[in-house]
């Protein structure tokens, strides 16, 4: 438990330090726009300072408290794998929705084209049913098709909520 507590407190201190650095203009003589106003940087600076001090106290308490009897952070190996099995596909899912690429001047470089919400959802739900649920292939196909279609009907047509579209939609090939 101790190394994890220390690492988390260190991250809190680091975030606070970055925010304090960004708000260093709090000490500029012309901070506010009205008499008595402390300016826009004063509040984030001192908020970050409180956060940093709290992080330091957590570090101190973690170091001085005897933690040998405490249980670990994770509930065993199985628990860690259960979380990873959910977290990793979720990360891929969000990446697939928006795609991966960058723009340099007039040229756009695409590593993964944006699949949009509906195609990515079909792949994600179908993939999860196949990998974790161990369903037969026709069930996987049905899940991969039915969920995006129902969501499309409910949100795009019903509530008129627009969700991200794929590169196929942009080229006029698919309706989503």
């Amino acid at each position: 438990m101790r190394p994890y507590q220390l690492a988390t407190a260190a991250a809190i201190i680091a975030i606070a330090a970055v925010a304090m650095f960004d708000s260093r203009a709090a000490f500029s003589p012309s901070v506010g726009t009205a008499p008595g106003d402390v300016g826009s940087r004063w509040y984030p600076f001192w908020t970050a300072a409180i956060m940093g001090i709290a992080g330091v106290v957590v570090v101190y308490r973690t170091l001085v408290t005897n933690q040998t009897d405490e249980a670990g952070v994770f509930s065993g190996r199985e628990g860690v794998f259960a979380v990873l099995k959910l977290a990793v596909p979720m990360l891929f899912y969000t990446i697939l929705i928006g795609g991966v690429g960058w723009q340099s001047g007039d040229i756009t470089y695409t590593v993964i084209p944006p699949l949009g919400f509906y195609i990515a959802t079909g792949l994600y739900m179908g993939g999860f049913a196949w990998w974790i649920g161990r369903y037969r292939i026709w069930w996987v196909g049905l899940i991969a098709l039915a969920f995006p279609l129902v969501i499309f009907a409910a949100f795009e047509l019903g509530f008129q909520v627009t969700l991200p579209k794929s590169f196929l939609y942009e080229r006029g090939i698919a309706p989503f």
Partner: protein
Amino acid sequence: MEIFNYFGTTLASLAGGFGTALQPVNIAMLLVGVVLGLIIGVLPGLGGTSGVAILLPISVFIAHGSLPGANATTAIILLAGIYWGALFGGVITSILFNIPGEPWAVVLLFDGFPLAKRLGRPGLALASSFVSSFVGAFVATVLFTFFALAIALEALRFGPAELFAVFVLSFATLVGLGAEAPVKSVAMLAFGLLLAAVGFDTITGEQRLNFGQISLLAGISFVPVTIGLFGIGEILASAEEQGIGYVENLSARLGLRDVAQAFRELRKRLVLVLSNSIFGFLFGVLPGHGATAASFLGYGLARQYSKNKENFGKGEISGIMGPQCAADSAGVASLVPMITLGIPGSPTSAVIMAGLFIWGLQPGPVLFIEHQDFVWGLIASIYLGHLMTFIICLLAVPLLALIMRVPYAIITPFIVVISIIGSYSLNNSMLDVFITVLFGLIGYWLRKLKYPLAPLVVALVLGDSMERELRKALIAGGGNPLYFFSSWLAIVVLALAAVLVLIPLARTVLARRAAGRLLAVATTEEGVSTSPEL
């Protein structure tokens, strides 16, 4: 005479509220909200807070009249209905499956599940829970009805110094009365306030903490962060638990005999249920706590004053009714500071409050003056919503229990999918989706290391308003910090906040002294026992 006028005005306003709440579109949305809330409550990976946050974008369309006859009142009735449903629904899985659907249902594992399994009375356990929940919510709604207007009228006189003091008090309760280490609460509070400060400064319009990123100029939206912390974070945590556990399986049938017996048991415990409902209300009004803390308080009180202490943990009905009425009462009460002062009483009411901002309403005392239909429509809908939830729960428990049979491989990714929809659709922004996933991972990690998430969420919602009042007070006082102590009310509230912050410190000192005394006694006894040998 004045008090009669006050009660007369309140009752007339409530009657008007019922007129609003009973409009077909509002009743329909209340039913939708309650059913969704019950489903959300039953699902272990999805809580009331994330459920409300996910549906917030849809409420925007409803508030802006995308449904015929709908307005902001309809939208808040929908969101509040989800909250009421989740308050009831979370107990079903605790009692039948030994898995709490919501944090406030954890306490029901102590006596609810044993009554259902060991004593073979799942129907009685469920009926006792629903009946006491209903009574708790009813008592709280009556208190809400008669005290909210008085609080709001008083709050109208508040200036920046008093408002800032109230913000400080609300943060102090999160630190002083929180279950986790106070220093971690402080860190999370500051983190929330810092996130709220990202983007344009509301007074000078200057950019800050955006590190040159245009996408961060509008600030970090509250909705994706909440969906991440409470939605994604919660399913990651429950994935870990389900990966190592197994689901108990009990009958979900609930007969008339059970309901009748639950009412008889309630009559025997009427004093407990009524007093716990009032305590739950008082606890729920305190910002940041809501139903979960009240449920444990209710259990503690029920056990403390019971003649059958030895039965607790073995299926004692007081161990179900005591916490349930307190939890539901606190859930209702958490809306009181949100509506009257603009300060949310729980993370879920913080999300509902964010909804008010999005629909173009300013939560706080002015609501009672400018949007009476909205406030009294909401209050009337609380009565109707709980009655509706109570009836649905009595009739549809087997159906709700079936939700637990939906396979993990389908329900879990589905929750992720609707979380993504909720975070994206508010601003049509992929950045919000990445923020949701990032805060999902952060929320899971912070939960594991026992950092409280409620202070982060409440601070993120209140951060802008608190800074505005702080700086308005400084400007009004010409930069003199003594302006914060310019009225008796501000002094009393700030003193109360200081006491609350000092509570954990006092607790630590007392615990150390007690430990020191025990050590001294142990050393003396050891000395006495070893002295003959010397």
